[in-house]
């Protein structure tokens, strides 16, 4: 079914309006609780980070496992620069903050941009040696760099800047839902625009067939660098948002496991689909909360159901990932994006199917076919 352009425009506007209203209501506390607000906020942040990873892995076809490292750079940049000056000696109690840093207090927005920028610069630097590698080696190399970043951040030698293994706290948090949602949506939007542009097509060409892409005039290295750096930029911004959301960060939050979890999100959603990643981000963040149910003992009357104890949640998660990888490799959306046509066609077909079944049962055994 193909709808008129005007119809689709109206539908999209209505959808966005409804979403905005929901966010507004959540923000003001009219619906949901502060717990819901936190989940929604976290989902938006993970959607941003997921799309950033999908840009490189799903759309450009490069197997990069370095997302956690870029998130860490963004998170720490924001953390270090936005902790209120008067609280800094409190946080940096083992090793005082560096003199040149201690009075620098930057508004959140700038710190966030700076975080993304640093992440992008770092990505561009390591891209030079690393992007020329074959996919398997690229994976390990990016993984390695992610760990190197973590080691550097956690190291007490640099405690004057990063506070070493103590981590950062007292980061001023979000007092609303609107700002992080806006930033997340803007980020995803920009990446979506890039993918729709001629450069996005070039990325897809590289994913499909590098050699043919090169033969058609696409400079592999430049385009891979572009994809990698942009992805790192938004991962850094995501990391920064995460730092503010949690009001505290430390290097243990950026272990390789985090990259694996984001990988789960993009695989679940479909590695070539932005919509898929966003949906998956919400599904998994919300699902994780709902699955906490599995982590505590469950009693039916007097009887304790076996298996229900801490850790079950993550096991179920891991099994979910394996199931998708083995049986639903394309994920939820494959490479398709959201389209009204698809939705209406789906319901139209559904309606026809239901009607046909209804008619058949009415006719009964009257005719042999």
């Amino acid at each position, binding site marked *: 079914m193909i709808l008129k352009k005007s119809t689709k425009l109206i539908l999209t506007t209505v959808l966005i309006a409804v979403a905005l209203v929901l966010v507004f209501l959540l923000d003001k506390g009219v619906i949901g609780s502060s717990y819901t607000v936190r989940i929604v906020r976290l989902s938006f942040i993970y959607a941003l980070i997921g799309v950033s990873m999908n840009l490189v892995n799903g759309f450009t076809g490069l197997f990069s496992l370095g997302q956690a490292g870029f998130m860490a750079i963004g998170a720490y940049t924001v953390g270090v620069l936005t902790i209120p000056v008067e609280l800094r000696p409190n946080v940096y109690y083992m090793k005082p903050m560096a003199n040149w840093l201690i009075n620098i207090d930057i508004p959140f927005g700038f710190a966030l941009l700076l975080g993304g920028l640093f992440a992008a610069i770092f990505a561009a630097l390591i891209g030079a040696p690393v992007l020329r590698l074959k996919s398997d080696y690229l994976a390990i190399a990016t993984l390695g760099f992610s760990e190197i970043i973590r080691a550097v951040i956690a190291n007490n030698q640099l405690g004057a800047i990063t506070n070493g293994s103590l981590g950062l706290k007292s980061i001023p948090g979000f007092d609303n839902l609107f700002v992080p949602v806006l930033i997340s949506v803007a980020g995803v939007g920009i990446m979506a625009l890039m993918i729709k542009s*001629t450069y996005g097509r070039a990325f897809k060409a590289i994913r499909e067939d590098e050699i043919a892409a090169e033969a*058609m005039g*696409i400079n592999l290295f430049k385009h891979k660098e572009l994809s990698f750096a*942009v992805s790192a930029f938004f991962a850094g911004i995501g990391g920064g948002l995460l730092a503010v959301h949690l009001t505290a960060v430390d290097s243990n939050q950026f272990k390789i496991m985090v990259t694996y979890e984001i990988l789960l999100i993009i695989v679940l959603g479909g590695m070539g689909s932005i919509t898929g990643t966003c949906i998956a981000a919400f599904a998994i963040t919300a699902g994780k909360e709902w699955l906490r149910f599995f982590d505590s003992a469950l009693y039916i009357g007097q009887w304790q159901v076996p298996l229900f104890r801490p850790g079950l949640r993550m096991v179920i998660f891991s099994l979910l990932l394996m199931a998708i990888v083995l049986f639903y490799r394309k994920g939820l959306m494959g*490479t398709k994006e959201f389209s009204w046509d698809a939705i209406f066609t789906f319901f139209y077909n559904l309606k026809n199917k239901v009607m046909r079944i209804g008619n058949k049962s009415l006719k009964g055994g009257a005719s042999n076919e």
Partner: protein
Amino acid sequence: MSNSENVLRVSNVTVQFGGVVALKDLNLEVNKGEIIGLIGPNGAGKTTAFNAITGVYAPTNGAIYLNEELMSSNYPSKKMLALYAGGNLGKYDKRIAPTPDVIAKKGIARTFQNIRLFKNLTVFENVLIAKHMTVKADPFSATFMLNAAEEKRIRQESLELLKILGLERVKDDISTSLPYGKQRHLEIARALATKPQLLLLDEPAAGMNPQESDELMHFVARVKDDFNLSILMIEHHMQVVMGVCSRIYVLDYGVTIASGNPKEIQNDPKVIEAYLGVDE
């Protein structure tokens, strides 16, 4: 029918991998408006020649000129020299090895022996992508749609191209859903989208029956005229080669064993021996 305007000159090009000499001292010329054939048994080095011309491999020795200007050149490294299969060392002392995208931008386009389409993308996207290198917009402008005019232009040009090649009706189909013959046409359309002056076709008639290869022959000749190209073609289908090429080079085990016009080649005993019967 060739004028003396030389488009491509391959001069003493050797391609050697370790101990294996894939191509030895190839000397080849394509002049403006010609269709040149490159034939030989499997493994003779024909695709290697293509790869050397388009920059996939850097030549181990020799030079390649485009429109009389030096495009790539190399000389054997010390390690290679010890293994080197002899031949003309040439007076090249510079290593100039542009990557394939640079060479594509200079005006050499190609198709591949095993069809390398962008499999999961549509017919239209396949051609659009080839236009990417002509877009004068940096990533920022392209993302924020500040280059709307360029985008419109390449879409229009791509659509035109698909129309000329009879592919517009399937433009939104996934490229691999097309029948085999149409896929080959698409690959050629994609190459043409880069507005080349020299088109390298690697076995365009592979897998086609005699009727289809006949059609292809006419198609190639038409494309050459309509798009003002010069063509270098690898083929095994002899009636295509003999029918449309003005000159032919024959390779065997990396060495050129004959070159000349179709009649001369058909009667050359060395060629007949290499192929054990030329007519198919």
